[in-house]
């Protein structure tokens, strides 16, 4: 036990004393924030795209522009909703209703901010509307041939540094009731702009068709305003579902991601650490003092202690910020703070971490013990990394439906259980749904621990190497004969 403690202590102190630890301490939360905010940031960072529409009927051009305006309004609504998540639910809901009641983006934003200012004046004052994604400009030419140099960027719209290429041009051709939009753009992969143009013109064509069939234009405007009011409930609960109720699901997904990131990076640390010791024969010196199983246990404990330090710092700093922010507001932040106080989520997180860490940790340690270099380990590590990445593909489906058959099925696969069960943890799991997969994973982890322990023992003492394993791989014998 003493040697296990000494090895664990050395591992812990070495990693904590390394720059890498402090860098990952800071960068991991930043990476998570960047990943979460990346789509919005990228969108906002991109300069507005210049588009033009050429149509014989000015109303067709106006309809297409309306299609884009609707999208800009939806984007503005999303940004406002995101910003209002820290506001109390009642305020955020009222602001949202005021926004929807207004006809255009500018008045919608003004109305929403006016409502929001009553419950959270600071937020209303600091809110910045995202820049427009598309800006309509007068067509620089009247036909495709004339537009081509602008679309290719050979000629620019505007002068000097302010000049930009034309992103797309829509040429509308009408034949009776039929309409055709020729979409010209140098970008062949982005389908958003053409979709918006088609939707805008389709609205007009439908309106025209209805009017031709006898519907009064005033009635048409009224009909377009008709939409049901949607209120969301959950079985067994009387109150309407709010952001606060959605928070635990987001927290569970967030914890699953933290769990995955931790196990992924820790496994890498274990792998590189043991390869370093194997390649420079430190392992030989250790083996004259300590049993291989004690080395394995010491390394696992040392790096586990490192993870707990990370969790403690992240949890302490993040939790303090979250609870501070949640104290003065409601909505999503308050819900997230509440969810983090829920022992159920934390217990699932702790058990999942221990099982996932032991299972993946010993596998990586065993692989490391077989290899003299990182390059040598790649043959075995690459498929394992792919396996580790697989449960992350379920993040979005699990958020949308934690009880989807695929998600439930994956939670019973021991290699995925720690992550997928964490994703599902807020969905009201029965004891069986949680205990079953965890018990199965615990058994698997025990089996992996025993098997990997044997491999580590053989690898550390150079009785087994990656070359020996290759002999058992399919096709290896055939290749050797050839």
């Amino acid at each position, binding site marked *: 036990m003493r040697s296990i403690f000494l*090895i664990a202590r050395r591992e812990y102190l*070495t990693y904590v004393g390394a720059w890498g630890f402090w860098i990952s301490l800071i960068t991991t939360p930043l990476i998570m924030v960047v990943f979460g905010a990346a789509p919005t940031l990228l969108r906002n960072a991109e300069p507005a795209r210049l588009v033009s529409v050429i149509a014989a009927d000015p109303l067709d051009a106006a309809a297409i522009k309306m299609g884009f305006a609707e999208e800009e309004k939806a984007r503005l609504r999303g940004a406002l909703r995101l910003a209002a998540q820290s506001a109390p639910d009642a305020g955020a809901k009222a602001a949202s209703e005021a926004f929807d009641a207004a006809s255009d983006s500018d008045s919608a934003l003004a109305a929403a901010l006016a409502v929001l200012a009553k419950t959270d004046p600071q937020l209303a004052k600091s809110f910045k509307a995202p820049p427009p994604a598309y800006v309509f400009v007068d067509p620089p030419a009247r036909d495709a041939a004339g537009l081509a140099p602008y679309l290719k960027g050979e000629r620019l719209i505007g002068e000097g540094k302010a000049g930009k290429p034309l992103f797309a041009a829509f040429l509308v051709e009408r034949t009776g009731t039929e309409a055709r939009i020729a979409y010209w753009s140098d970008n062949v992969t982005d389908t958003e702009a053409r979709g918006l143009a088609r939707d805008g013109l389709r609205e007009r064509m439908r309106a025209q068709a209805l009017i031709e069939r006898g519907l009064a234009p005033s009635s048409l405007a009224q009909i377009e305003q008709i939409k049901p009011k949607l209120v969301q409930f959950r079985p067994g609960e009387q109150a309407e579902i709010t952001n606060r109720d959605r928070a635990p699901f987001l927290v569970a997904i967030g914890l699953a991601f933290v769990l995955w990131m931790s196990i992924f990076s820790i496994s890498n640390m274990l792998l590189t650490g043991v390869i370093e010791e194997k390649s*420079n*024969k430190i392992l030989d*010196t250790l*083996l004259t003092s300590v049993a291989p199983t004690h080395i394995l246990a010491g390394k696992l404990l040392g790096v586990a202690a490192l993870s707990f330090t990370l969790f403690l710092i992240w949890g302490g700093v993040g939790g303090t910020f979250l609870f501070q922010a949640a104290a003065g507001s409601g909505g999503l932040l308050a819900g997230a703070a509440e969810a983090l106080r829920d022992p159920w989520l934390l217990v699932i997180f702790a058990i999942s971490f221990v099982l996932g860490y032991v299972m993946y940790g010993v596998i990586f340690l065993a692989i490391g013990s077989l290899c003299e270099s990182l390059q040598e380990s790649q043959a075995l590590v690459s498929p394992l990394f792919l396996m580790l990445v697989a449960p992350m593909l379920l993040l979005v489906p699990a958020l949308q439906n934690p009880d989807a058959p695929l998600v439930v099925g994956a939670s019973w696969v021991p290699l995925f259980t720690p992550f997928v069960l964490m994703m599902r943890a807020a969905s009201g799991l029965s004891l069986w749904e949680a205990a079953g997969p965890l018990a199965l994973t615990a058994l698997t982890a025990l089996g992996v621990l025993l098997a990997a322990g044997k491999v580590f023992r053989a690898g550390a003492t150079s009785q087994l190497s990656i070359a020996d394993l290759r002999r058992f791989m399919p096709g290896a014998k055939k290749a050797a004969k050839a």
Partner: protein
Amino acid sequence: MSDHALQVSGLVKTYGSHRAVDGVSFSVARGSVFGVLGPNGAGKSTTLRMVVGILAPDKGEVSILGGAVSRQSLRRVGYLPEERGLYRSMTPSGILVYWARLKGVAAPLARKRAIALLEEHGLGGYAHKRIKALSKGMAQKVQILGAMIHEPELIILDEPFSGLDPVNQQTVEALIRAQGRAGRTVLFSTHVMEHAERMCDHIVLFARGQAAFCGAMGEALASVPRAALLETEGGFDLAAALQPQGFAAVEEAPGDGVRRWRAGLDGKDASRRLLAACVSAGAPLTLFEPTKATLHEAFVRLVGDAASPADPRKSLGWRTPVDVGA
């Protein structure tokens, strides 16, 4: 208590179809400085790794300090592996304390010993610097000190001189001698004969996984036929002059105005008898120098034969090395 710090008997280790160690036996007396010699790939390191329990032998037995190889007995053994390295981000004192504590030394004593050892070997100023800031020679010294920090009864060093410059080789040599003087048993492997020749009481010579010779250093040197170097002035034919008196002289490369000869020395007082024969033959001698056999010559003679497919033990007059070094 056994007189032997180490006894190895019939060790065999096979990797696939390759027999890396093939029935090796030898013993190391307590308090001796013992050399394990042989070319690369002869099975030295594999044998030493079996001795310290890193590898399990397919056959054979190892007895360390009078008992079987166990974690407990290995606490009294210091080991320096071949192709070594250190934790680059640790400090020399940190590493020494770590190794000592793993060997069961209490923390305060380990710290005290580490600083004292580093000071003693000129590394006091580097005690708290990171290993990556040290030169290769310094790092290697730290590693050797790591094998000694717990004051083991038996110190096993696998190629301790490899990769060191001549100055550092001398330092390591002094370190090993000091351990020997302190009454500890030191066993080291090397393929540099001069080190073993200068330091060892007893040696084992490895070839193709077998112990081709095991015995006292003098015994190995005695296996090399003795000879004398002679120089004569003018055109004097020494070979012809000595032949009737029962000595064979062979001319070597000619010198500047002199002829050089090598004459074999066989039997008691051969050196004195040869000189008398030269004088009685009226040889105009300018040099008479009986040569000293080197371990390199002994190695080539002994292991050169052993490397052949024939059973080396027959041609070398192998004897069971139970009492070697005692």
